[in-house]
């Protein structure tokens, strides 16, 4: 009886996590607290566009690549609640690298480098509210 309840509860929590991942356009969750590890990899939603991959492809001869915010939210240089320095001008990044985070309510979305190179400008500071697709970084080609 008790274990049945625990299973139902766990399924309900998983459903909730998946719904939140869908809402935030998350594809991968890797949680590890030392005792339990939870790895969730979601199949792409049919017909849905991924908010994270929405940024426009860079032009053929890019002077620099703009790194847009995935959504309207709060900018974090590192994954909250951890604190740290985050990226700095001049840092090298590779395509697909997570550069910072944007917090939207309970969800933390990654800011992903669309191309590799060197950070030219950083347009947001820790805790700043940022708009949907607002340019947060400019990456100069390496």
């Amino acid at each position, binding site marked *: 009886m008790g274990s049945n309840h625990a299973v139902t509860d766990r399924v309900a929590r998983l459903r909730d996590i998946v719904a939140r991942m869908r809402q935030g356009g998350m594809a991968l969750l890797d949680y590890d607290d030392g005792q339990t590890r939870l790895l969730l990899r979601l199949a792409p939603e049919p017909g849905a566009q991924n908010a994270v991959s929405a940024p426009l492809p860079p032009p053929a001869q890019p002077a620099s690549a703009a790194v847009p915010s995935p959504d*309207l*939210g*709060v900018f974090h240089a590192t994954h909250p609640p951890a604190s740290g320095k985050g990226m700095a001008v001049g840092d090298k990044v590779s395509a697909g690298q997570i550069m910072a985070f944007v917090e*939207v*309510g309970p969800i933390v979305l990654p800011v992903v480098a669309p191309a590799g190179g060197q950070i030219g400008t950083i347009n947001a500071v820790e805790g700043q*509210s940022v*708009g*949907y*697709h*607002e340019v947060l970084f400019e990456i100069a080609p390496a």
Partner: protein
Amino acid sequence: MTLTFDTVLIANRGEVALRIARACKVLGLASVGLYAEGDDAQRHLALVDRAICIGPAAPGKSYLDKERVLRAARLTGAQAIHPGYGFLSENAAFAQAVAEAGLTLIGPPAAIIRAMGDKIEARRQMMAAGVPCLPGTEGALPEDMAQAHALCEAVGYPLIVKASGGGGGRGMRVVNSPAELDSAIQTARQEAVHAFANGDLYAERFLTTPRHIEIQVLADQMGHALWLSDRDCSVQRRHQKLVEEAPAHGISRAAVAELGQHCVAACQRMGYVGAGTFEFLYEDGRFYFIEMNTRLQVEHPVTEMVTGIDIVAEQIRVAGGLPLSISQDQITLDGHSIECRINAEDPQKFIPSPGKITRWRPPGGPGVRVESHLYEGYTIPPSYDSLIAKLVVHGATRADAIARMKAALGEMEIGGVLTTIPLHQRLMDESAFKSADISVHYLEKLLSRDDGGSNGQ
């Protein structure tokens, strides 16, 4: 005295967003503009203290997205939200969410928006407040057809069957005689269930050649309410107004004042707050309530021109807890005002004409006011409303206002897109318009005569 907020989020776009940004400046308030992706070239965004992109171009994911608008308010520190007109301005669920978030909606309480959005409930409240209504059924029409026939007989024919939760002509049927009633109810109910998920219908007397007359009201949180002026908005096409004026020509001032007092009583009875409009049909010397708009209206400037009252500033002040800055006996009516809605549309076929503005020369001179977010080089996006400018004039008399409108329309140059300017120029020369001998069917009849003529050529 100060307002309960110091920063206003403008949850709209285009000319009304600019109008609100200007009012905030006048009141010394900070303002935040929001916009959809790709819609960042709007003029008001240069006037606000902060502009933020809230989502994709599709209105459902930006201007109409309640959660995103609220998120923008939270993120930018705005404590009040002005919804403008259209979009979320009459959305009771949004109003409730704003209140629950501890923010101020510049508009009436959610319960009033909800009540006035339900036509049966709105009518019930108007009857109770003494506002004249069309003869009609008290509640929803019963399913039993014998009972429905008896109720409709009491209303009288011709009548119109309407969806309680409806609007925009859907779920509506004109019934000329009892023989047509059964099929009219059946089809209207189907449409109503389909479009509004609410099959409730009611019936009211159908007027054949009414004018559209409306009353502008303002109310504060202390229980004061006043009516500002009447407007005539009979020049319509498919329920969209094209020309509005204040005051209504040829209607006794005493009759209008009596109507205005009934509207004030209704506001006080329901605890109304902010700007609102009571819309009426007028035929054979009598007014009949159609609906109340619980928001600022597109045509508010004509009332501002004849009363000298800044309606948007008053609306913001009362939302911030201040009393109305005027009293009923201070309101006077000066001259006549006309507004022409300049839409980026083909002036004959009314097909939207978005595109880049290559030339912009707004008119000027005494009594001429232009409310527009246009500038040269601005591109009108295809995704939104086609209203690009409101040309408003003020004259000593109606004839004087028409003369000023003709001159202003002739001076106005908008290049790059088609506009309704030629249609307005024609209207200002029409003898029926000049003598104010028009009903709500006037424009559609005029345009259908054109179609007949062109078909014959």
